[in-house]
């Protein structure tokens, strides 16, 4: 295990102060399920670890009019058990159930998953479908960023050295919203996604009013498949042959890598079928 200085600020102001002090020479510790593994492998250059776990302002799930605010230190177990999220954002709950294992979900946090910026982070595709807004805080105040603009590459985000993720804001689901999260891993538990997709649809009288498709693990960041969304909106019926042709267009929306979990070619091929499965599941149910 690497050596480091450990800080555990009791409130947000102290954390902001520390961030301001250390700038790039610090890492925030949220759940630590990814960070600790990297610290053990001496992959962390930063010398100061700021543990955010004592900051109550960063934990919780709040209902605010037609929105829900989530504190970044909320664990996946808390998300899965949240009455508010089960009612108003079931897609995030569904995806959270696919994260790691019970032990990992008890410790891993949604804010950590976002700020780690892995293209395979399972909580990120549903947040793309919800068009989540992220509130970042620093001594200069708050700023709001669309989740789609937050990531710039694997492990890279637009967050500044002195900023902390403060809130994740999503809109509540309406009655006619439906969604599906489809993940291919090497096994059910404890697997890193090879490819995943998340689809949210607003349907009325058999017509698709709105659709959002987010793809995980198949590009440097999670991406929306906007061309496919448009094709689906224009459909008169949901004939499976047609849905398959449209799903195949996914190869034009992604840019996967080859790694130990799968080759680029495999990821492209499997993405078509995964998306087809999700679309059939939602449109023809």
């Amino acid at each position, binding site marked *: *295990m*690497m*050596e*480091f*200085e*450990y800080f*555990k600020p009791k409130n947000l102001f102290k954390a902001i102060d520390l961030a301001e002090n250390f700038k790039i020479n610090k890492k925030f*510790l949220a759940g*630590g*399920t990814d960070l*600790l*593994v990297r*610290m*053990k492998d001496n992959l962390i250059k930063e010398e100061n670890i700021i*543990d955010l*776990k004592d900051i109550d302002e960063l934990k919780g799930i709040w209902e605010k009019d037609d929105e829900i605010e989530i504190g970044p230190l909320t664990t996946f*177990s808390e998300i899965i058990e949240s009455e508010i999220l089960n009612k108003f954002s079931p897609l995030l709950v569904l995806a959270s159930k696919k994260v*790691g*294992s*019970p*032990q*990992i979900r*008890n*410790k891993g946090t949604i804010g950590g998953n976002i700020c780690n910026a892995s293209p395979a982070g399972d909580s990120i595709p549903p947040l793309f479908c919800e068009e989540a807004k992220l509130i970042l805080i620093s001594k200069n105040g708050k700023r709001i960023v669309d989740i789609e603009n937050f990531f710039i590459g694997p492990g890279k985000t637009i967050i500044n050295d002195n900023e902390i993720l403060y809130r994740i804001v999503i809109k509540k689901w309406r009655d006619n919203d439906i969604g599906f999260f489809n993940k291919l891993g090497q096994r*059910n*538990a*404890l697997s890193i996604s090879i490819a995943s997709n998340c689809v949210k649809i607003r349907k009325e009288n058999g017509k698709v009013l709105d659709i959002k498709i987010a793809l995980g693990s198949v590009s440097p960041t999670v991406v929306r498949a906007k061309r496919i969304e448009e094709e689906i909106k224009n459909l008169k019926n949901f004939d499976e042959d047609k849905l398959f042709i449209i799903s195949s267009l996914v190869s034009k929306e992604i840019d996967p890598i080859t790694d130990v979990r799968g080759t680029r070619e495999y990821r492209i091929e499997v993405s078509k079928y995964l998306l087809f499965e999700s679309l059939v599941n939602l449109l023809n149910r």
Partner: protein
Amino acid sequence: MKKILINFKLNGENIVDEVEVNKTLLEYLRENLRLTGPKEGCSKGECGACTVLINGETFNSCLVLMPEIQNKEVVTIEGISRENPLILEYLIKEGSFQCGFCAPGIVVSLYSFFKKFKKPTILELKEAISGNLCRCTGYKKIVDAAKKYIDERF
């Protein structure tokens, strides 16, 4: 490495100790206290052999830094064994373990699970031990034992 004063409860006893901040809970339990029930398998949170309870929930102790357990309540397999929970009998009777390396973690996960679920389904049961890898038995005899325990107990 800098040390920090840690105050926590372990298997019902208060512990106050000066510990290096970069020590994991698993290292502290095994190396400092010689509590070798929790095992080091992967050290990455993937195998679950080091599972312990912190405030009643299951955690991989290899992914917990000592400063993180300040004022918390930790229970290891040693603490659970003292209570001699009935599930142990079922696991032994069914011959659920071969090499035994995963056993402490699986027992901790099952113990925590049966505290929470009064009449669990098999699917919930399998989910509860999904963070614990076993390379000998293919889980069947573990699930069989837990199934019998549920059927006869509830």
